[in-house]
């Protein structure tokens, strides 16, 4: 970046499955107010607002227009971004680029979803649907079909067992129970997970999959000089990378996840993490990175994430789970917030990752603050055949 930028404010609303008392405008407004409070800024100090949301889930075309009633965008710059599951990250990156352009003093990024306002399952399946090529039963299972391929592959190469996956899910539930903003906060047992019914046989069970949540996240990003004035705990956005797979027809291969690139759906994660490490001289992530927030829509994906992020050798994800190193009190804490597995308002899920890393790097995560001292973290985002990764630090 020609100009270094930092996260100077974080606003996260509660997350839940139904929220009839609030309109989208009010939920977005709450996240923005929380971020302003956190940074002790006034809306007047903000000069651009970047919006991220999956508009077909709530059905508002050009939803940034209506959102001006709650996000403070009146007479300010801004635009709306949508890149699918990664929309929160893309929105955050867009805000980072705005702040780094030298044209703005403080930029607000907001991501949200209110999934009780429409049939997100129906909308979601249009991603893969081509009327000429659709043979599979359209299903609420949606991307669960993708995870099945992922899981079958991991089982085949003996990276994890189903029991280890269940342990990982239990760990996520324990983390989420400490996070007051998380959606699913009840602590699960291995039996709960292993006995939950199949969503997609033969591998993916209901408790392997993230919930559909309602909530919003707002971040305020400022260029260096400004950031230092705003806060004494800026979290620097050192680098960001994103990558598409982009080689297969989404229609035919997507339902099963994996075509020409082999594993279509993790190639972009591998590619973006690899590039991020390379650009920033990271050769030993376990030592050089203190905390990870991985976008884990499914427990199988999180296990794969351990390998993708280079936290264990290939096919050793299960052993890493068993070692307990990835727990809040472990040496390489992963998703201390509970991750997407416990909180998934799609439009904010990928923005929640850097937001949670920022809270950890500031030491402001409260009950789910990791035990070790942390100064550098990686936040990952995933959606369809696209993935994002960014590197955050609490020092320059």
């Amino acid at each position, binding site marked *: 970046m020609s100009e270094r930028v930092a996260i100077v404010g974080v606003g996260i609303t509660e997350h839940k499955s139904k*929220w*009839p*008392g*609030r*309109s*989208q*405008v*009010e939920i977005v*407004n709450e996240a923005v107010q929380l971020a302003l409070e956190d940074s002790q800024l006034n*809306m007047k100090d903000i000069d651009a607002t970047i919006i991220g949301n999956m508009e077909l889930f*709530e*059905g*508002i075309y050009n939803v940034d227009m209506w959102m*001006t*009633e*709650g996000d*403070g965008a*009146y007479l300010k710059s801004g635009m709306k971004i949508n890149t699918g599951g990664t929309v929160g990250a893309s929105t955050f990156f867009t805000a980072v680029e705005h702040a780094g352009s030298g044209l703005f003093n403080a930029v607000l990024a907001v991501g949200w979803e*209110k999934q*009780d*306002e*429409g*049939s997100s399952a*129906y*909308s979601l399946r*249009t991603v893969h649907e081509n*009327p*000429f090529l659709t043979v599979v039963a359209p299903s609420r299972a949606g991307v669960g079909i993708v995870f099945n391929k992922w899981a079958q592959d991991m089982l085949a190469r003996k990276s994890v067992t189903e029991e280890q996956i269940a342990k990982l899910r239990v760990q996520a539930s324990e983390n989420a129970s400490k996070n007051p903003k998380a959606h699913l906060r009840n602590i699960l047992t291995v039996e709960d997970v292993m006995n939950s019914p199949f969503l997609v046989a033969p591998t993916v069970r209901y408790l392997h999959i993230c919930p559909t949540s309602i909530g919003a996240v707002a971040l305020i990003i400022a260029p260096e000089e400004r950031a230092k004035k705003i806060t004494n705990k800026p979290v620097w956005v050192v680098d960001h990378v994103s990558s598409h797979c982009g080689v297969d027809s989404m229609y035919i291969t997507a339902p099963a996840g994996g075509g020409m690139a082999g594993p279509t759906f993790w190639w972009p994660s591998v590619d973006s993490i690899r590039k991020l490490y390379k650009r920033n001289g990271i050769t030993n992530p376990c030592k050089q990175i203190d905390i990870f927030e991985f976008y884990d829509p499914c427990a199988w994906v999180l296990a794969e994430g351990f390998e993708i992020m280079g936290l264990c050798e290939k096919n050793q994800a299960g052993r890493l789970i068993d070692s307990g190193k990835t727990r809040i009190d472990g040496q390489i804490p992963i998703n201390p917030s509970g991750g997407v597995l416990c909180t998934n308002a799609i439009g904010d899920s990928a923005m929640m990752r850097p937001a949670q890393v920022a809270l950890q790097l500031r030491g402001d995560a409260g009950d789910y603050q990791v035990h070790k001292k942390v100064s550098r973290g990686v936040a990952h985002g995933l959606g369809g055949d696209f993935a994002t990764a960014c590197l955050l630090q609490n020092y320059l």
Partner: protein
Amino acid sequence: MTNKIGELEAFVADKPFETWFLNYAGAVCSEFLAELRDNKRILGIRCPQCNRVLVPARPICAMCFRKTEGWKEVSDSGALVTHTTVYHALPCQEIEPPIIYGIILLDGADTGLLHLLGEVNPKNLNIGMRFQAVFKEVRKGDIRDIKYFRPVK
């Protein structure tokens, strides 16, 4: 495989996108709509900063970025700010053309209310004309509980 790319008449599928949405009104807008339904009253809400009375009521004054507070009943009649008459059917509107829309600045309000106009010949419409709300018999807590605005007699 003699079919040449660029010269084919492409297959076209008619596949509508059909779904539902349930958009929650939130606390402030719910109260506004409930008041229309229960008492046929139109409520404004005040912005503590610019002191404008917003009609219809919204939770935040978008100009000041302040939470609105303090309900204020406004008149059910006011002056026409602008209008249009649509001469073709609209896919999202059941009523037959001509369909007349207008923005009415109700007495006591600082912002205009968008609604349908009725009982008026489009030829006779003038900006500044006085209009009054006509409520439906059966009301459901919806902006459509006002049937339309008609000229003040």
